[in-house]
C-alpha cells in the first residue's frame, strides 16, 4: 500500500538489505542490553564469578554500542540514498530536501529519534565501561582474589557492573521499542518514488542539527547518574567515590542539557517568528524540569561530598531527574498535552507510561527498603553556612520544579475533574518564575561566599561588605540614570551583588595560590581551574547565569514592536532603527517556494544592510502551510527582528512587516556559552582523583576534620594548613 497519496508507487522492489541489516543491528543491541543487565546484576550482587561477569558486562556494553552504531549508519545511508523501501525514510525523506537536512532528519521525528536515543544510550554505556576498564586489572594486581580488603575497593568493583546493568535495563526498553512498535526499519513494499520530507518547521534552520542532539545527550546522559543511584541502593552502600563519579556524569549530562535548552531557545527565536525564545510550552517545560532537579543535585551533592549528609535526598534527586526525563519524552510522543512539539505515536505513549510506572515504583521500593542503611549522622550546625545556602537552593529549585510541573499538568487535571478545557500560559509562568528566579539569583551570591559549617560574624562582614555595597550603588545608579521599572532594577542590583562575590572568590583564590606556590597571576588562575575545577568552573557557570538573567530582564522589559504596511520606498521607524521596503520577490527552490520581501535597514541614520524575511511553502507538505522565516539582525546591544506578515498578492506593491526590537537578547546565547565553558572546566579530567579518593572516603563517613590533598606531581608535599580564616582551609580540599 502506498504511503503517500500524491506519489506514484513503484512496483519494482527496492533493495531490502538495508532494512534487514538495520533491524538486525537493533536486535543485536537488544541482546547486548540483556547481557549487560544479567551479567551486571550478577557481578554486582552475587558472590562468585564476579570478575568473569564483570568482564562480560563490559564487553556487552561495547558490543551494544557497536551494534547501534551500525544501525545508525544504516539509517543514515538509507536516508541519504533516499531508499524509500525503509519505512522511516518513506515517512520523512524526499528527493528535494537538501542533503544537510536529510542527514539530520534522522532525529526529526518518531522512530528515528528513538533510534538516536538508543544509540546515545548505548554510547554512554560503552563510555562508562571504558572509563572503568582498568578497574578489574587493578584488583587482580592487588590480590588476585576479590576480597573485602578495603572499603574503597570492593564496592567499586561491584558498582561498575551494576551501573552498566541498570543502563542495560533501560536499554532493554528502548531497544525493545525499536524492535517492536517503533521499528524504523520496517519494509515498505512497493516502495514509493518519493516521500513527504521532514516537517517544514524542521528544515528552516541549520540549528536543527545542534539542538536535538545536545538535548538528547543531556536527557540520555541522566541515565548514568540514575544508574549510579540504583546501583548504590542495591548495594546498600554509598561511598565517597560514588558521589564524586556520579556527580561527574551528572555535570556532563547537565552541560549538554543546558546547551540543548538554550539552543532550543535560540532556534525558537530564529525560526518561529514571534520574536521570543521561551513560551512555557509543555514540552519546553518538560525539558526544563529535569534541568532544575539536576541543578539541585549538583549543589546538594557538594553537601554530601563534604559531610556525608543528604544521601537519600540526592538519590531521590537522581531518580527524579531521570523520571522527569522520561516524562518529557513521553509528553512529546503521546499527544496527551497539546504542544507545538508533540507528535502522537499510537501505542508508544502507553508503553512509555508503563515504563515510567515501573521505574517510579521500583525506585520507590528500593529507597524505602534501603534508605535506613544510608542514613548518616550529619548536622547543619548553623543557619549561616554554605550547607544552609545549598539546602535553600535545593528548596527553591525543587519548588520551581513543582510549580512548573503543576502549571503544565494543571489543564489536564482540571479537565479530568471538571471536564472543562483551560490554558495555563506564559502570563502565569512568568508570574511565578520571576520571584523564584530572583531569589535564586540572590542566593548565588551568598552560597559561595559562606564557609562550610558556620560563618563567624566577622567573616560575614568581610565577605559581604563589597557585594552589598556594589549592589546598592548599582541600584541607585540605575535609578539616577532613569530606570524606573522595579524588576530590572532588582535584577541589576542582584547581578552586581553576585558578580562581586564571584570576583572576590577568584581574587582570594589567586592571592592564596600566588603566595603559596609562587605563581604568576595567570598561572594562579589556571591552577584554580585545574585543582578546583568544580568550584571555579561552577563560578564561571554562575557568571553565565547572571548574564542570562540580565538578558532576560532587559529584553523582556524594553522589547518594542511595530507593524505597518509599506509601499516601495516607505519606511517604518522603531526605536533607533528604520526599515524601508524595497520589493517583494519569489523564488522556486527544489523543495519549496519562497516568497520574500527585501528591506533596507538603518540605525541612527546609518545603513546596516538588507534584510529579507520570508514565507516558505514546502511542496511536499500535505497541509501546504506557510512557514515564516524571520530576518534577524543582531548586535550586542539589540536585535532588529523582522517578520513578513502579508504581501499584496496581486501587484506585489506593498508588504506588511512586523518589526521587533529586542534589546540585549544576544547575551542570552552568550550567557549560555559561558555556562558551557564553566561546565567544561568543572569536568575536565584531572590526574589527582585516585589520590583524593582516600581522603574523601574518610570525609564522607562523617569525619569532621579535613585532610590535606596529596599532590602527585609536586613531590608529594603536604600543604601547610596554617591559615587564619576557616573559609580558606577547605579551598585546597575541593
Amino acid at each position: 500500500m502506498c504511503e503517500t497519496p500524491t506519489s506514484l508507487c513503484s512496483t519494482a522492489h527496492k533493495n531490502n538489505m538495508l532494512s534487514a541489516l538495520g533491524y538486525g543491528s537493533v536486535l543485536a543491541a537488544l541482546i547486548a542490553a540483556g547481557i549487560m543487565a544479567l551479567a551486571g546484576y550478577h557481578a554486582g550482587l552475587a558472590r562468585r564469578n564476579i570478575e568473569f561477569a564483570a568482564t562480560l558486562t563490559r564487553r556487552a556494553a561495547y558490543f551494544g554500542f557497536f551494534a547501534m552504531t551500525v544501525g545508525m549508519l544504516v539509517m543514515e545511508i538509507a536516508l541519504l540514498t533516499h531508499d524509500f523501501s525503509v519505512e522511516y525514510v518513506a515517512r520523512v525523506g524526499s528527493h528535494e530536501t537538501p542533503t544537510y537536512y536529510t542527514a539530520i532528519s534522522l532525529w526529526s521525528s518518531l522512530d528515528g529519534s528513538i533510534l538516536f536515543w538508543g544509540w546515545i544510550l548505548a554510547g554512554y554505556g560503552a563510555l562508562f565501561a571504558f572509563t572503568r576498564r582498568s578497574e578489574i586489572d587493578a584488583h587482580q594486581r592487588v590480590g588476585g582474589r576479590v576480597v573485602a580488603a578495603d572499603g574503597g575497593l570492593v564496592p567499586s568493583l561491584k558498582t561498575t557492573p551494576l551501573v552498566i546493568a541498570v543502563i542495560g535495563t533501560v536499554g532493554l526498553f528502548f531497544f525493545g521499542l525499536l524492535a517492536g512498535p517503533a521499528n524504523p526499519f520496517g519494509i515498505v513494499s512497493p516502495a514509493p518514488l518519493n516521500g513527504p520530507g521532514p516537517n517544514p518547521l524542521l528544515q528552516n534552520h541549520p540549528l536543527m542539527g545542534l539542538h536535538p542532539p545536545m538535548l538528547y545527550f543531556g536527557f540520555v546522559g541522566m541515565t548514568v547518574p540514575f544508574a549510579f543511584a540504583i546501583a548504590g541502593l542495591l548495594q546498600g552502600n554509598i561511598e565517597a567515590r560514588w558521589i564524586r563519579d556520579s556527580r561527574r556524569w551528572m555535570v556532563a549530562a547537565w552541560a549538554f542539557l543546558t546547551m540543548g535548552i538554550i539552543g532550543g531557545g535560540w532556534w525558537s527565536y530564529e525560526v518561529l517568528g514571534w520574536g521570543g525564545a521561551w513560551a512555557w510550552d509543555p514540552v519546553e517545560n518538560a525539558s526544563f524540569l529535569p534541568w532544575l532537579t539536576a541543578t539541585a543535585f549538583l549543589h546538594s551533592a557538594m553537601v554530601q561530598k563534604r559531610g556525608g549528609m543528604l544521601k537519600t535526598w540526592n538519590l531521590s534527586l537522581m531518580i527524579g531527574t531521570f523520571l522527569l526525563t522520561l516524562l518529557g519524552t513521553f509528553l512529546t510522543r503521546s499527544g496527551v498535552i497539546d504542544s507545538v512539539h508533540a507528535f502522537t505515536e499510537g501505542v508508544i505513549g502507553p508503553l512509555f507510561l508503563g515504563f515510567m510506572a515501573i521505574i517510579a515504583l521500583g525506585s520507590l521500593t528500593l529507597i524505602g527498603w534501603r534508605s535506613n542503611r544510608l542514613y548518616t549522622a550529619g548536622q547543619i550546625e548553623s543557619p549561616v553556612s554554605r550547607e544552609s545556602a545549598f539546602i535553600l537552593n535545593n528548596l527553591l529549585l525543587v519548588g520551581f520544579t513543582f510549580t512548573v510541573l503543576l502549571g503544565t499538568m494543571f489543564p489536564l487535571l482540571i479537565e479530568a475533574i471538571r471536564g472543562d478545557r483551560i490554558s495555563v500560559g506564559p502570563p502565569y509562568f512568568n508570574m511565578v518564575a520571576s520571584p523564584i528566579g530572583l531569589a535564586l539569583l540572590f542566593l548565588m551570591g551568598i552560597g559561595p561566599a559562606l564557609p562550610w559549617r558556620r560563618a563567624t560574624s566577622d567573616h560575614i562582614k568581610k565577605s559581604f561588605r563589597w557585594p552589598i555595597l556594589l549592589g546598592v550603588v548599582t541600584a541607585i545608579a540605575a535609578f539616577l540614570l532613569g530606570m524606573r521599572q522595579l524588576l530590572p532594577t532588582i535584577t541589576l542590583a542582584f547581578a552586581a551583588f553576585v558578580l562581586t562575590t564571584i570576583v572576590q572568590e577568584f581574587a582570594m583564590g589567586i592571592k592564596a595560590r600566588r603566595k603559596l606556590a609562587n605563581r604568576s597571576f595567570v598561572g594562579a588562575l589556571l591552577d584554580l581551574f585545574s585543582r578546583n575545577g568544580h568550584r571555579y568552573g561552577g563560578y564561571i557557570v554562575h557568571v553565565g547565569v547572571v548574564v542570562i538573567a540580565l538578558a532576560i530582564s532587559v529584553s523582556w522589559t524594553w522589547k518594542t514592536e511595530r507593524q505597518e504596511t509599506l509601499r516601495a520606498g516607505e519606511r517604518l521607524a522603531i526605536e533607533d532603527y528604520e526599515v524601508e521596503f524595497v520589493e517583494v520577490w519569489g523564488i522556486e527552490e527544489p523543495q519549496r517556494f519562497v516568497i520574500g520581501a527585501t528591506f533596507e535597514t538603518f540605525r541612527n541614520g546609518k545603513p546596516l544592510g538588507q534584510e529579507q524575511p520570508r514565507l516558505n511553502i514546502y511542496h511536499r507538505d500535505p497541509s501546504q502551510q506557510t512557514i515564516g522565516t524571520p530576518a534577524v539582525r543582531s548586535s550586542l546591544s539589540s536585535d532588529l527582528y523582522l517578520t513578513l506578515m502579508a504581501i499584496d498578492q496581486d501587484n506585489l506593491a506593498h508588504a506588511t512587516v512586523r518589526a521587533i526590537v529586542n534589546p540585549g537578547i544576544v547575551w542570552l546565547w552568550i550567557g549560555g556559552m559561558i555556562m558551557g565553558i564553566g561546565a567544561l572546566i568543572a569536568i575536565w579530567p584531572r590526574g589527582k582523583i585516585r589520590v583524593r579518593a582516600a581522603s574523601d572516603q574518610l570525609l564522607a563517613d562523617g569525619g569532621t576534620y579535613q585532610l590535606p590533598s596529596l599532590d602527585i606531581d609536586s613531590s608529594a608535599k603536604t600543604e601547610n594548613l596554617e591559615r587564619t580564616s576557616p573559609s580558606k582551609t577547605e579551598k585546597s580540599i575541593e
Partner: protein
Amino acid sequence: MHRSTRNTDQLPGTNKRLHAQMFIWALAIGLSPAPITKLIAQSVDGAFDGVEAPAPAGDEVREAELDDLTAQIGAELRCPICRQQSVAESSSRIAREMQGVIREMLMDEKTPEEIEAYFVQSYGEWILLRPKVQGLNSILYVLPFLALILALVLIGAKIGFGGTTGIHESSLTVSAPDTGSTLSARDREWLDKARSES
C-alpha cells in the same frame, strides 16, 4: 596534618536559638514571593484592576494608548491555533483578526474585563492564558505556597530544630576514626599503591 580548629564543646542540638532563627529566616524568604508576585503581576503583566478604557484625548495619543492596551489584552488571550502563543505575539491571521476585534471593542468603550468575558463566551475558558482565580483553579495559585511551607517545615524538622538527628550509621562504610589524625596504615598502603599506579 592536623585538625582544623573546631570548637568541640559546642554540641549539636544546643543551638536551638540559631535553628529557630534559621527557620524564621527561611520562612520569610519563602513567603516573600507572595507580595512580590502581586507586585510583579501588576507592574509587568498588567493586571486589569484599575485599568480604565483610554481617555478620548488627542488622536495620536489615543492611537498609541489603544495599541498598548490592545497588546496588553492580547497578551492574556491565547491564539486559538498556535498553542502556547498569545494573540499579541502570534503572526497568524486569526490572531490579527482578534486584535482587530479587541481594538474595536476598546473604541466602543468596553472595559478589558468585558472584552475578556466576550472571548471566554465565544471560545471557552481555554482562551485565557492565565486561569481565572476561582473555584478549583485556585489550586494553581495556592498549592505552590503550601508546598513551600510544607518543605520548610520538613527541612526544619530534619535539620534538628528541636534536638539531635538520627544516630544510624551506614553499616558497610568505614567509620571515621575519631582520634586518628594520621592516615591509618591500611589507608597509607592503599594510597601508595594508587599513586604508583597512576
